[in-house]
């Protein structure tokens, strides 16, 4: 199925969790925050939250800014 990950279409298997997605893209959960369909997903829910077709996921981190 297709999801939108940081604004780009990505193909993922069904029953894929947010944790599975992070493993696949090689991102550690420590220094990021995640939004699923414009709602923040707490880190404690990464393993249990399954993705669905057309889900919009944002993976964000802190960068330099003023």
């Amino acid at each position, binding site marked *: 199925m297709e999801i939108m990950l940081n604004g780009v279409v990505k193909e993922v298997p069904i029953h894929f969790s947010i944790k599975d997605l992070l493993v696949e893209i090689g991102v550690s959960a420590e*220094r990021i*925050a995640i*939004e699923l369909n414009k709602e923040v997903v*707490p880190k404690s829910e990464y393993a249990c939250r399954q993705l669905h077709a057309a889900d919009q996921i944002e*993976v964000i*981190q*802190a*960068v330099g*800014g*003023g």
Partner: protein
Amino acid sequence: MSNVFEDDLLQIGQHSFQSRLLVGTGKYADFEQTRAAIIASEAEIVTVALRRTNLGQEKNQANLLDYLPEGITLLPNTAGCYTCDDAVRVCRLARDLLSGHNLVKLEVLGDPTTLYPDVVATLKAAEILVSEDFDVMVYTNDDPIVAKQLEQIGCVSVMPLAAPIGSGLGVCNPHNIVTIIENAEVPILVDAGVGTASDAAIAMELGCQGVLMNTAIAEAADPVLMASAMKHGIIAGRQAYLAGRMPKRRNASASSPIENTIAARRDRN
């Protein structure tokens, strides 16, 4: 020496700070320079932005948060947001990223040329964030009415611009800044527009509780040296404000005694 200055803390919400200089982390050559400039500035509150993780990057790529000095207070911003909804989303993400940290810098921009705030959207976003228990430090223009409204909504600090973000023009409308300060019951900080240490000192002499800056340090030829200069400018301006400046006079007032001089007396021409 009196200890008036030593006891003079910046109070933001429930927290107090020795330093009245707040610095950003953008536009530096690298994270090492960012860190060195923050240390030289002795700032205790440091802003960061939130952006999409670059998913093409290598694993274990350096992260800004790992370079920031121990013990600083992070101030995540909503830079780049042009709508109330986006700014609120970014603050909620920041709270999760920073494990429940609720201090945020709200800015909702109006257009990319001026980077002036969209004050209508800013007021709306401030209301939502305050209702969600964020401590909101809010970037706004130098309009005293809007500044007061943001305070009444419950923002912990109101931060009018000195001049457009990144312009380095200095305090362009000191009269409005003073009016905002006179009306305020929360700390007023100048956010954006200072270019050099004297600009920071002027803002503090006007009675600002602090100054937030990024470009003035990061785009200096020697950012670390400028960070130190800004620290001194802020301290000088604050001390001058507390000391109370002398009145201005149109004509001269001799500093040496005018009596008993051997020189021939000169009356006014």
